[in-house]
Structures are given as structure tokens and as C-alpha cells.
């Protein structure tokens, strides 16, 4: 299925962000780890095959760098995931 690997990596990034937002209490997730997970998504050529996916991922990465709230980062990643599944 096209975009499957990208969707898996985006879901991983979302789960990392959610574990920060939800306070899972079993891991200290750093912004660096979240940024790495998003960069892992950007490395895939699949993200260029569907409009807006790379843009949303870039925005999510910027949001992490800017210290935006976890929910904002998650929302932007969900937008990327949604664009991928729509594409």
C-alpha cells in the first residue's frame, strides 16, 4: 500500500507526542526524540507523493523547535496523516 511506511512513521511520532501530552508516566520523551521521529518521516520519498504531507511534517518539526504545546504538534502530525490517507 503506498504511503504505508510513512503512515507508520507518522503514527510513531504522534504516539511519542501523545505520551508527552497524556503524561503516560513511564518514559521521559525529549523534544529531540520527537524531532528525530519527524525527520524519519521526512526521509521517505512517499511524503512527496501526496500533496501537503511534507508541508505538514515541516510545520510539525518547526512547532517542536519552537517549543509549541504537544497538542499543537500532534494536531499538525494528524493533518499529515490525514493528507496521506486522503491522497
Amino acid at each position: 500500500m503506498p504511503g504505508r511506511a510513512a503512515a507508520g512513521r507518522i503514527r510513531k511520532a504522534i504516539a511519542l507526542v501523545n505520551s508527552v501530552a497524556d503524561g503516560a508516566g513511564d518514559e521521559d520523551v525529549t523534544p529531540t526524540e520527537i524531532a528525530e521521529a519527524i525527520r524519519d518521516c521526512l526521509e521517505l520519498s512517499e511524503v512527496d507523493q501526496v500533496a501537503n504531507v511534507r508541508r505538514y511534517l515541516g510545520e510539525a518539526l518547526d512547532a517542536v523547535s519552537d517549543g509549541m504545546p504537544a497538542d499543537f504538534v500532534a494536531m499538525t502530525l494528524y493533518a499529515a496523516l490525514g493528507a496521506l490517507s486522503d491522497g
Partner: protein
Amino acid sequence: MSSAEGRGRTVDEAVDAALIELKESRRNVDVKVISETPEETLVEVTVIDHTAVPAIDSAPANGKAEVARGLVEGLLKHMGVRAQVTVRTGSEPITLDISGRDLGALIGWRGETLRALQSVTNVMVGRHLAEGERIIVDVERYRQRREHTVREIALRAARQVKMTGDAITLDAMQPFERRAIHLALEGDPDVTSGSIGEEPERRVVVGPRKPAAE
């Protein structure tokens, strides 16, 4: 508002006992776990009064909840989803309950859509919230039911660990589910819980608590 206490071996059994007494269905009640031991669970089940004016109207101090409720209601309307949004009374943090027909799509695969809706809600309401404060969004009590279920799983795993002395690795779970497990077991002197693996395949391991080194 009527309520009843229920007892049973599991949360589900205890809730069912109270529901029989109240003659109500599960979707119309609030469940509060009063005590949970391996042998017995005691719950308080309260019937939700859908006709009541949301508490927020009479409590201006809780205006944030009403702002959030209005925003989510508007969002669902734009999405073409017909649903009722209410503020769960006496809940901390603020919890919005979405109820209606055929809301499975709003929950999504493993609660993914619900979690996305919650993220969007918190972004929209963010400026009204204090630092660290969050809004929880629940659809047809899915989240609450999942928390009850994973607590059950945690207690069952703890019983097994105590019997065998071997650690048990549970299925991959979402952060709020893992959190519910850690909270359920944190007071147990005989078992301990931790997580292994990477998201989204991160799993809770329940194992015997080792005695502190002398």
C-alpha cells in the same frame, strides 16, 4: 440524580450489578470506582441527568468547560456529525462527553480519531487554559470504558504474576492506557510495572517487585 453501589469480582460485574438495581443502560451513567482489590471491586454508578442544564451555566467559574463544549459542538457541526456534547460533572480535568448515534467513526482505529479530536480541542481552547491544564474528550464513554478494561487487565496480570513469579508483557497500548495500568498497580506492594519498546508498539510489563536491598 439517582445512584447505586455495585459489587463484583471485576469492574464490569460491579457496574452490571448497580445497573440492574438502577434499571439503566451503561451509556446513561457515570461510573466511579470506589475500591478495587483482587477479590472484589466496589463502584458507585450515578445516572446522568441529560435534561439538566449543564453545570457550567450555573457555575461561571467553570467557563472554560463551556467554551470548550461550544467549540467542539461547532466543530462537529462543521464535520456533519450530529451529536450532543456535554460537560461531565464533577470531573477533573474538564471532560467533554460526545454522545449520539453511529459515532464509531469519531473514535477511529484504536481511538486515533478521538485522540486527534482531543488534540484539536486543546489547541482551540489552549489560550483559555492554565499551563498544564488539559481538556479530555470522550466519545460514548469509549475512553472511560478502555480505562476500566485496562485496569481489569492490570489486576488480572498482577494476580498471575503473584501466583507464578514471572513477569507478563501486555499488548501494545496507548499512553493513557499505560498510565491507567501504572496507576492501578502503583499501590500494590508485590508487583511493579514498567514499559518497554518504542511507540506505537510500547508495552507494559508487569513483574514481581523485588525486595529492597538491605
